[in-house]
């Protein structure tokens, strides 16, 4: 015969380990949740400690003000970070010039004009575009975009800032489009319908109602995209070259912060050399740049949000 409910309850009261489990589980889960915090602490401490070692060999002042990056020279190695920062900025500027108009136009089209069926086709395609590995984009930049650019502008070299800049821009289009579209879609329908009822055209609704109302989200999406462009590694490693330079030339080989880290890592700079520590100093600089952008993005989206 099966035990009655009362008996089952009495039985389970007897089991002590149930109470123990209820007490232990939250602690275990808390420890698991703290792994992400430990990761952040690990990143910051790693970068700080190795960067401090770097600064015992290279003066801090030379690093942040120097305009020559010449780490591989045997007798006159120079570690001035600015050429790498300029290289990163060149890529970022081109990427933003490409991605912002296209990304925001796509967002406006999806949120204001497209029918439900069209959205159902385009959004997954944008997701695919966002899911393409960056190494594939890098290959595309090197073997397609660069030759096409060279055919039109013969002065462009094999390694240049324009081609990887354009492709980084293509890479961040989905990010700007989908985050901006989220911001635009969260503008209440009633406001839009009010404007339409007053005789506005759809373009006027988009331009005068939706964009101003969603501006904080749109700006935040652009700032996040800038952060992604600054941290992008493989496209620039493959297609931008490895010549750190402090000038305004976009047509020749350049080097970004991320590409320098890759260049050193795949070579065999021995553990403990100044070059080895320099990748942490560059990584730290990169980390500060992206962190500043991420904080700016969350500040913009919180501080300037329009509440309805």
């Amino acid at each position, binding site marked *: 015969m099966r035990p009655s409910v009362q008996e089952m309850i009495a039985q389970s009261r007897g089991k002590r380990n149930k109470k123990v*489990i209820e007490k232990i589980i939250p602690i275990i889960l808390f420890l698991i949740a703290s792994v992400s915090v430990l990761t952040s602490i690990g*990143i910051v401490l790693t970068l700080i400690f190795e960067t401090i070692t770097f600064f015992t060999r290279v003066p801090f002042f030379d690093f942040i003000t120097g305009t020559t990056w010449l780490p591989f020279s045997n007798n006159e190695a120079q570690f001035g970070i600015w050429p790498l920062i300029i290289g990163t900025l060149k890529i970022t500027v081109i990427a933003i010039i490409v991605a912002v108009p296209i990304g925001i136009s796509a967002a406006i089209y999806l949120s204001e*004009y497209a029918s439900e069926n069209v959205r159902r086709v385009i959004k997954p395609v944008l997701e695919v575009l966002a899911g393409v590995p960056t190494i594939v984009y890098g290959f595309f930049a*090197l073997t*397609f975009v660069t030759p096409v650019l060279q055919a039109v502008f013969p002065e462009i070299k094999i390694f240049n800032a324009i081609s990887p800049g354009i492709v980084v821009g293509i890479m961040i289009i989905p990010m700007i*489009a989908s985050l901006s579209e989220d911001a635009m879609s969260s503008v209440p329908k009633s406001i839009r319908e009010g404007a339409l009822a007053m005789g506005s055209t759809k373009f006027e609704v988009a331009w005068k109602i939706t964009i101003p109302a969603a501006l904080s989200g749109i700006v935040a999406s652009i700032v996040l995209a800038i952060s992604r462009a600054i941290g992008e590694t493989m496209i620039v490693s493959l297609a931008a070259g490895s010549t750190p330079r402090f000038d305004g030339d976009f047509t020749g080989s350049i080097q970004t912060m991320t590409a320098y880290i*890759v260049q050193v890592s795949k070579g065999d700079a021995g*553990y403990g050399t100044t070059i080895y520590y320099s990748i942490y100093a560059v*990584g730290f600089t990169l980390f500060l740049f992206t962190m500043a952008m*991420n904080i700016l993005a969350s500040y913009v989206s919180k501080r300037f949000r329009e509440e309805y």
Partner: protein
Amino acid sequence: MRYIEQQTVVKRMNGRLIANAIFKYIFLAATLLALLALVILLYRIVSQGAGNLSIDFLTNFASRFPDQAGIKAALVGSLWLMMVVAPTSIILGVGSAIYLEEYAKQNRITSFIRMNISNLAGVPSVVFGLLGLTIFVRAMALGNSILAAGFTMSLLILPVIIVAAQEAIRAVPGELRDASYGMGATKWQTIVNIILPAAIPGILTGSILALSRAIGETAPLIVIGVPVIIQFLPEGVMDTFTALPMQIYDWSSRPQQEFQAVAAAGIIVLMAVLLSMNSIAVIIRNKFDKRY
């Protein structure tokens, strides 16, 4: 008194309608331009790489000669990598999500953990590589093994999995929870027997998408020092290995034209792996969508 001057309205109407029509097509053209980029990219890669794709390509090791080069070591290496990354990142990610959604009190520590997760998602992957190099490769002396790379990748995709799992858990209706408590179940029993089964489709979808990001990531592997030319298959998690994106990177950066076709063939294999993973995610999402 007239509020609307009919003449002005009529005069302006034409220009407004034209502007509306023009901008509609500008926005549409921009959207199509983004889609066109994807089409060109896929077309280029398939047309360049399809000729090199063969059974030999899948079963050969890397070679100095483009026509003999194969992707076997990289393909197997990537699968090994996933065997470390999948359990590590899913256990850590789902555990964190359960803690944050079910146990965490609204206090400073909790909001710090939340803020920390969203910041971690914005850290460039190459910086994760530096973390892996210092902590796993050097401090824990794992070398450039599958384990070191796997742990690094797990931390890289951890924020994505946590957020996906949090959303899945949050989507479980409150009535299910209340019914379970009403029947006398404890909190942990409710989580294991009610909430997790209901949230698993969402968790799986998010995890597969995160894993497909890990399989295509290159930068952390380069920083860790994962080699490219490997003529053997790994036999355990402490062995050195190479992975698909590493192999593709190596082929792409060679000056010979022939290797670019080999790289394109490698990309086709990588994209095929990604596509099948994404299809599984979509199937799971559609099959279990809106059960409640």
